[in-house]
């Protein structure tokens, strides 16, 4: 399908009667950039034959959605000699006419650019964890969804991932292209127990309570990546098994990952790590009263206990996220923790295979009335 028409008129005929076709030049090449959602920025190069004097070039389209005001024309040859005199929009829409002055006749190369709707690209990722859980194979796929109404026979796709792809794309076609693949990328598996989101006592639930498991990858050169930011996209994670076949571990949406940053992908729950949290103490201490005997200030003395059991036959890195409201002071803790912000702390526990661990922390919380 050809939905774009480029007509060239003999100089100095009536602008609005578009007859007398001089040339219908073919596209040389198109560059398609996907910078904004659902819209592509198209730059196409064509050769047109200009007559000496004022030429009218009519650019019209049908069945495609072009942002009319985004259309620009650039001269690639004789930049200093050619002059764009005028641009007009005819009343029937979906077209425009450029008036170009050329000091002498001949072929010229021009670039027409515009924003085209209903064409975009998506990213999907595939991760295959090796059977010893030491490294991953990382593949990036580009999915071109062209529902713009236009075919591009020779298109250069410039995705954000930073690799140039030369491919054709037909209207209403979806195309999946493998654009990057790398083996041997290091990763880490992290188990996360977030106290404010998860069930404290799994025995109170009729359903299985699993601990969310994440794969963490560094987008860094030394890790085999780090060439460009990773663009958000659905990521499917597999793992090779003993028979060299593989099983599907789960999927997550990769978020935007700048070079040097870490990506975390949640793929499933582990039921072989059991975490049970209990509050063992909460009493009021340091109570201060006003003259009428009313309480104006007190601290709560609280003890939390987290019982962890690793039923796996491997080590596990478990992160425990705890939220402590208001003003607080830690009195005692069995394990080191990191203060994420004023009210959130994080324990990182390295669990040995088939082991039990108890994390207990004791804090005072200030209460003003």
């Amino acid at each position, binding site marked *: 399908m050809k939905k774009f028409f480029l007509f060239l008129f003999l100089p100095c005929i009536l602008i609005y009667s578009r007859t007398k076709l001089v040339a219908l030049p073919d596209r040389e090449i198109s560059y398609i950039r996907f910078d904004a959602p659902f819209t592509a920025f198209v730059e196409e190069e064509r050769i047109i034959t200009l007559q000496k004097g004022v030429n009218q070039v009519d650019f019209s389209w049908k069945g495609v959605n072009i942002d009319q005001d985004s259309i620009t024309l650039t001269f690639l040859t004789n930049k200093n000699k050619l002059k764009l005199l005028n641009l007009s929009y005819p009343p029937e829409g979906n077209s425009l006419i450029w008036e170009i002055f050329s000091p002498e006749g001949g072929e010229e190369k021009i670039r027409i650019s515009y924003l085209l709707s209903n064409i975009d690209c998506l990213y999907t990722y595939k991760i295959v964890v090796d059977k010893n859980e030491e490294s991953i194979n990382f593949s990036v796929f580009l999915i071109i969804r062209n529902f713009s109404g236009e075919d591009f026979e020779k298109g250069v796709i410039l995705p954000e991932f930073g690799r140039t792809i030369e491919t054709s794309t*037909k209207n209403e076609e979806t*195309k*999946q292209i493998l654009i990057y693949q790398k083996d041997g990328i290091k990763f880490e598996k992290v188990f996360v127990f977030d106290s404010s989101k998860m069930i404290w006592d799994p025995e109170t639930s009729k359903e299985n309570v699993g601990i969310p498991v994440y794969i963490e990858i560094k987008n860094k050169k030394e890790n085999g990546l780090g060439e460009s930011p990773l663009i958000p996209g659905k990521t499917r994670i597999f793992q090779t098994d003993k028979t060299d076949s593989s099983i599907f571990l789960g999927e997550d949406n990769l978020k935007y990952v700048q070079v040097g940053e870490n990506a975390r992908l949640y793929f499933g729950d582990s039921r072989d790590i059991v975490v049970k949290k*209990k509050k063992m103490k*909460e009493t009021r201490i340091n109570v201060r009263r006003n003259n*009428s005997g009313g309480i104006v200030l007190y601290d709560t003395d609280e003890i939390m206990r987290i019982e962890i059991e690793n039923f796996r036959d491997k080590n596990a890195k478990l992160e425990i996220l705890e939220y402590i409201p208001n003003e607080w002071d830690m009195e005692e803790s069995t394990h080191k923790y990191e203060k994420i912000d004023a009210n959130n702390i994080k324990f990182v526990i390295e669990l040995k295979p088939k082991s039990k661990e108890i994390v207990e922390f004791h804090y005072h919380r200030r209460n003003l009335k």
Partner: protein
Amino acid sequence: MKKKILLIFILSTFIIFAKVDIVTLPSRDKVQLTIYNSADLTLVRDERILTLKRGENSLQFSWANTLIDPTSLELLPKQEITQINISQLIFPPRVNELGIWKIDSKISRKVPFEISYFTSGISWEAFYIGTVSNDEKSMELKGYVKVINRSGEDYENASVRLVVGKINLLEQIRILAQKFPPYGKPGYLPPIMVDKEKVEMFKAARAVLAEAKEKEIIKEGVSEYFLYTIEGTESLPDKWSKRLLSFSQKDIPIEFFYKYEEEKYGEKVRRFIKFANDQNYKLGKEPLPDGLIKIFKYVNNEENLSYIGSDKTRYIPIGEKIELNLGESKEIKVDVKSIDTKTKNYMFNKDGNISGWEEEKTYKIKVINYKNLPVKVEIKRNFPHQYWKIDIDKNIQWEKYDLNSVKFSLNLSPLETKEFTYKLILFEGDRRY
């Protein structure tokens, strides 16, 4: 027999969309199904031999009336990996349920390929049958798996693998399978519908049980999941189910015990069976996937059985203990009576009003065992808040469970009645601080 999946191999380049010039119509050589139980998802690996020509080859794959997720399609050569480049997968305009792979080959020969994809409509579940001995001291436990095919596609001689574990899925495969175009259109983001009703209907569909063959099931852990590989191959025609014995273990020592907790179970006593998934209980070779367990008991020496009850088990990792709740029991009675309430140790504020006091409550607990067997009874008592003190008979075993509850543990001989009292002191108002 229905075959919904078609694979057509097209002569190098020329006319992509005209289904002519078919070089080979390869049939399945091997098929492997990896079936999940936490989601309606099966990973299918289909091995076929393709005859490649040097240059560009096109392979057309169509899957009308199946539940295949087109975004999961993948083609991989099993040999000559460096000679073959599969650069693109094209979903042509206005054609549903069809994809074309572009294969660039540096060689001309037969090459085995693997096509993999996700399909919905095949599921599996675990269930158990336990038979308790007459003296209630041991149990025989049998675990089964049942595979159900509602995918629209027949799978003949497939090697079947079952995955135990909860995976994270962003969209349901059933929804993805119905999406056209496969990745949607730009600007249009279809809502992710969770089609629970259909899944439930599907689950509830009565299974046609095929004859259970005593096949071995090989078990191994992969990542956070557990993989069951059924020995040999199975044929799974569309709309059929199959039941297989996963394991059978005799003489598992078990312990019956009883629980009483008003807030959780009301005033009735609940009967439980306790054992663990470890070597002490002749188990522990594999985690036990979640499933319904039915418990029967031998009532005489003629092997007549009675049905005791059932419970839905959670996933039990290796080494974890199991408590099965078998419902109400009339064989044990727990009677809790409040026999005395007192308030004392008052505090008064400046205006002469009461600002604090202690409440002393005395309870009598009577436990009766109507059975001819010794029993264990656990009684949990929950208090209204954490400001309390307790005074209990010295010979009663108890522990603080958490900040506002305690647990009493009693052992009773056959037909024995035990009684004990405890005094709970609750600190109220300013007496708390």
